């Protein structure tokens, strides 16, 4: 009985702690809202600009887990779908801070943006630190692209890589037993050298994805493919160079992008800006989860997955 009493006291203490956490969380949300740069003088309803963020590596499901801020392609497409249905949203600023990601996930976001563009919802891309490769692919779907002078962009190209650990395995006398149904089943295997046939197969896939990339960028930027191919050799460039090659439209900040979106959508300069709020706990869980993500090799900062073809700028 004594044990049960102590358990009940523990439960009541936990409940008290939860109440304190709830008060702190709600208090933090209120502080965050009241200290926002967008002041209350802006009306909180009516036609305005929606903000969508594409941050980090682009993958289908994202890497922040259930408790973090949803950031995968699926959640981005879902957010775009909500904006599409919301009659208050006349323009969308896509804030991109991404080195790119998988081909499929990037194309999902690109296609969804095109859908909005066809419905005459103004899309303005605002580039942050990095909007390269897949990040640029997504931006190219927008009507207008704004980047900072120092934004790293470009890197138009496709990559697939995996480590070749054959010599390491040989050194330690490690052998792999592979039983497979087809000769290409263990393509990109790390324990052996790649064959010429495998290389040729992968190269074909890479080339197809590359041509698709160039075609879609040309479509989005209203340019000929011949104008893009000379700079679509995987090179990165800063905002200034990108402007020179007409890969972007303007040098400016996020604020400039928002103002441009309002201008293109014929909105008042003080039209509201709508952005989905995240709770402090979602931010905390999200950052913890991405730090502890098992997909990252500790200390390298590189994403390791030998079986993917990606539009990604490798930093």
């Amino acid at each position, binding site marked *: *009985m*004594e044990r*049960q*009493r*102590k358990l*009940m*006291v523990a439960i*009541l203490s*936990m*409940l008290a702690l*939860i*109440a304190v*956490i*709830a*008060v702190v*969380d*709600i*208090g933090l*949300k*209120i502080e965050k*809202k*009241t200290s926002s740069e967008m002041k209350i003088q802006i009306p909180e309803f009516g036609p305005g600009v929606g903000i969508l963020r594409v941050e980090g590596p682009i993958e289908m499901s994202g890497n922040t887990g*259930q*408790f973090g801020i*949803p950031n995968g392609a699926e959640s981005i497409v879902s957010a775009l779908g909500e904006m599409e249905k919301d009659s208050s949203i006349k323009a969308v600023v896509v804030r991109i801070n991404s080195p790119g990601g998988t081909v499929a996930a990037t194309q999902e976001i690109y296609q969804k943006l095109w859908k909005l563009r066809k419905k005459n919802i103004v899309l303005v891309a605002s580039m942050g630190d990095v909007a390269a490769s897949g990040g640029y692919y997504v931006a190219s779907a927008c009507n207008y692209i704004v980047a900072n002078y120092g934004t790293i962009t470009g890197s138009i190209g496709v990559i697939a890589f995996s480590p070749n650990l054959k010599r390491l395995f040989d050194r330690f006398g490690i052998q792999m037993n592979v039983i497979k149904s087809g000769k290409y089943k263990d393509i990109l295997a790390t324990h052996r050298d790649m064959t010429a046939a495998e290389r040729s197969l992968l190269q074909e896939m890479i080339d197809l994805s590359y041509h698709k990339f160039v075609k879609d960028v040309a479509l989005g930027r209203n340019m000929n493919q011949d104008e893009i191919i000379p700079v679509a050799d995987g090179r990165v460039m800063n905002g200034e160079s990108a402007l020179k090659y007409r890969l972007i439209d303007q040098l400016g900040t996020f604020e400039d992008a928002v103002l441009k979106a309002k201008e293109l959508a014929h909105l008042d300069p003080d039209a509201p800006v709508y952005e989905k709020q995240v*709770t402090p*706990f*979602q931010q905390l*869980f999200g950052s913890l989860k991405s730090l502890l993500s098992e997909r990252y090799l500790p200390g390298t900062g590189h994403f390791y997955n030998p079986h993917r073809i990606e539009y990604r700028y490798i930093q």
Partner: protein
Amino acid sequence: MKLETLKSLRWADYFIYTLSDPREFVRRARQKDPDPFFISFLIPCIVVLFDILAFSAAGRETGFFYYKISYGWIMLFIIALFKIGIYSSLVDLTAQFFGLKGNVREIIVVLNFSMFPGIFFLPLYYLSSVTGFAPGFFYVFFSIVFFIWSLLIFIQGVSEIHSIDFGKSFVMVVLPGIAAVLLIFLVFILFFIMLAGYAA
């Protein structure tokens, strides 16, 4: 003496038996070791606070939240006391109508403790709110679940107080509730008609 009672954790038995065996809870409450009457008022106090927090987490966060958890908490607690007083009196009146002995003090204790499951609403709803997993659905779902649970505890408690079966206790508990709802509805209609008449 009070500190010894607090340290002994015998008061925790009331919470344990409220959830596990309401009839045993009533038997222990009668022993008054310690007297559960004043302890019981802690529960509506905490439930009201948790309701405010859950409602605030569900809605838009504005500076009004600080008023809600200070003045709002006091006001809602007083309203809760008022409702507890009236409802327990009605249940006691119904019991006397059925020829049973009136004991409104015990009924107040059971009614207060029957609200204890409502304290678990906040952590469960908060989990769905933070994960963004159907918070609206779970708000309604948990509200219904804990209401039914509290009702069952109260019915069993009243059944044990008057040594009657569950069915009779169910009628004694639900009847005043239905009567009160009907009365409020009729008053509302009357008020509305008066307003319409005044506007005309």
